[in-house]
């Protein structure tokens, strides 16, 4: 389940704390009139809106395909949402396709209503729900309610039991983290790498492991020190973790948090090299950027748009990595040498050809064998989606 979107708290806090500052400063709210007339004030509030209401409801139904995309955070977060928004922007260029977007939609009934509004008021035919928590129950309920509309969710949750007009799509980003690991392993002199991670859940652990395996493939002594912040979005703690890892000697920093912005900027300021995550952070680190693990949602979005505009049927479940051009690595930054670029390009070619990263024998970082000799788990193996260990070479613990 390659996504990192289970972060509704972040959305809530981000949106509401600024207001809180305002109301907090009001202090001594004494003298509360409880006159029954005060209620008229509320009526007044309603009256304004009624007054502002002009006639004419114009449903903007486009003749072609209308695709609605819902994001849990801002579209310019340098992370998960931006990766989708970049693809949405490109999709808008496709003739006959109208793209409508909503950002900062929390994983509550608000997302049901956003989807419904896109269908009712804008005539959407296809909805991309891009946050993990949108799926159950919100998207499923909407799929039952609107059987003629297609719904697709950016995580591998769809099963045969779910409505047939719903589905899942997701990408094996850990393959791009593997390439990051190769770049980081070659760029560091002492083989000391740092990883700022949100929560010890399978999708995050898989990225840490693949990054480590990439680094070890070019530098067997490489060590990846990991710090879990415990939250999807906690900029202060992310900056602290980055600084702590650098103080401990890390030469390259990467991360798996909602928005890698703070991590990349902090490392750049300290003169430390970085690898990105989710979207392109290359412009945040003009000196120290190597490359980054990026989703390539556009491949999927274009595929789906093509199918629907030509009258075909959408698949319920698509997934893939480098083999299907669903993931990519950010264009090399200034810190990437020719040697690094060559090694990364070779790794990408191998991954496109179906190279398997998880091959036995493999031990976790407590010395326990997790994959016996002779066994391998390819990218499509659901075993990887249950990852609960950190591979040998990672300094840190999941608990």
């Amino acid at each position: 389940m390659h996504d990192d979107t289970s972060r509704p708290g972040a959305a809530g806090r981000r949106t509401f704390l600024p207001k809180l500052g305002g109301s907090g400063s009001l202090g001594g709210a004494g003298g509360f009139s409880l006159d029954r007339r005060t209620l008229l004030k509320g009526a007044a509030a309603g009256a304004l809106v009624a007054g502002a209401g002009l006639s004419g409801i114009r449903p903007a139904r486009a003749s072609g395909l209308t695709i609605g995309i819902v994001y849990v955070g801002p579209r310019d977060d340098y992370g998960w949402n931006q990766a989708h928004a970049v693809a949405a922007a490109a999709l808008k260029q496709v003739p006959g396709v109208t793209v409508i977007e909503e950002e900062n939609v929390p994983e509550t009934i608000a997302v049901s209503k956003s989807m419904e509004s896109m269908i009712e008021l804008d005539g959407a035919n296809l909805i991309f729900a891009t946050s993990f928590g949108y799926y159950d129950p919100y998207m499923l309920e909407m799929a039952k309610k609107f059987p003629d509309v297609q719904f697709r969710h950016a995580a591998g949750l769809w099963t045969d039991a779910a409505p047939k007009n719903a589905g899942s799509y997701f990408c094996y980003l850990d393959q791009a983290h593997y390439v990051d690991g190769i770049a980081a392993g070659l760029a560091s002199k002492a083989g000391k790498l740092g990883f700022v991670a949100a929560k010890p859940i399978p999708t995050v652990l898989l990225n840490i492991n693949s990054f480590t395996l990439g680094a070890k493939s070019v530098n067997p002594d490489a060590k990846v020190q990991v710090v879990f912040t415990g939250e999807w979005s906690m900029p202060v703690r992310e900056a602290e973790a980055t600084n702590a890892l650098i103080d401990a000697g890390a030469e390259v920093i990467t991360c798996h948090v909602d928005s890698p912005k703070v991590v990349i900027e902090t490392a750049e300021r300290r003169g430390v090299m970085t690898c990105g995550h989710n979207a392109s952070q290359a412009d945040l680190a003009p000196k120290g950027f190597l490359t980054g693990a990026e989703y390539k949602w556009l491949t999927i979005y274009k595929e789906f748009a093509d199918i629907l505009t030509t009258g075909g049927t959408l698949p319920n479940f698509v997934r893939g990595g480098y083999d299907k051009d669903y993931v990519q690595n950010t264009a090399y930054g200034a810190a990437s040498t020719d040697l690094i670029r060559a090694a990364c390009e070779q790794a990408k070619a191998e991954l496109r050809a179906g190279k398997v990263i998880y091959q036995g024998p493999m031990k976790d970082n407590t010395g326990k064998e997790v994959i016996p000799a002779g066994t391998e788990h390819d990218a499509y193996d659901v075993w990887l989606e249950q990852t609960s260990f950190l591979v040998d070479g990672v300094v840190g613990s999941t608990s």
Partner: protein
Amino acid sequence: MSDAVRDGTGLPAGAGMAEWRDRIGRSAEYLAIPLFALIVSAALFSLFLLALGQSPGQFFQLLWVGGYGTSFSWQNTLVRSAPLIFTALCVAIPAQLGLVIIGGEGALVLGGLAAAVIALPLAGTAPPAIVLFLMLVAAVGVGAVWIGLVGLLRYGRGVNETIASLLMFYIAISILNFVVEGPLRDPASPNKPSTASIGEANMIGNVPGIDVHWGLPIGILLCVLLYLLMSRTTFGFAARVTGGNVRAAQGQGLPVGKLVVAATAIAGGCAGLAGFFEVAAIHGKANASLIAGYGFSGILVSFLARHNPLAIPPVAILFGGIAAAGGLVQRRMGLPDATMVVLQGLIFVVLLASETLYGRFRIFGGKR
């Protein structure tokens, strides 16, 4: 029958006339000043839109269509208003005693968690009505204890209730995270830590005929009940006296401590009820989706309602409508989501500034 009885004021006829004129004047004032403030906010916001090169006319039309223009829009608005009513009550009730509680979100989160926790072992064995009842009791109880604790700290130790309730919100999140990531984690949901589902049968469902859950009518009913409690009972009177002047209240022998704890507990119960409806009507389980910011939006609603429980539902519906229309505005005008936050902020600031206008206009008989 004397004039005094007939006009219902208990005053002599002439005085009654004056009293009524005064009342109508002030009613008009309560209507006109917020309306004026909203118009000023709309004007300022229009300037903001013009500065961005956008059309204010289109914006307000979309606000109308998305919030109130269709039956779907109305349901969208109402469903977003329901939690705001409860969380606004969590601010409004302690405000009668001069307490500023801003941590209702914490009571909402823990109330929702308690509802899920109590439902899980019962799901499938006990009848749904009993499960729902116990969920409700648990949610209200935990919410009441949580904010009641803030009142107790205020009374017993002199801890500032605003800061205490805010900081306790972070403790509440930690408790939620601990429970859903630890002891009660549903193993089937590894990437989104969550409790198991309470089961479809134990969900409270919608009001028949509309796509709005029971939280809305119950919230409105609760507003009426709490209005009566605060305006028509000894408790409410004592609370308001305390809010007016604590020393005078103490001098009169009012049990200020008990009043503070009771009011904060009622407030917490309201916020807990919001959590109950989030779990029982929407999510069907407890997870971090409970932290959606309703508690903080409720602060805004309560202040705009001037902490009057009866004014809370219409203000909540105004804000529910702004939230409901936000998506349409984003989609049609290509504006960022923050646009709606700017509008809310402007309304808040202008309405608070307009507080100074009360009693200044002769036309309303303003001699106060």
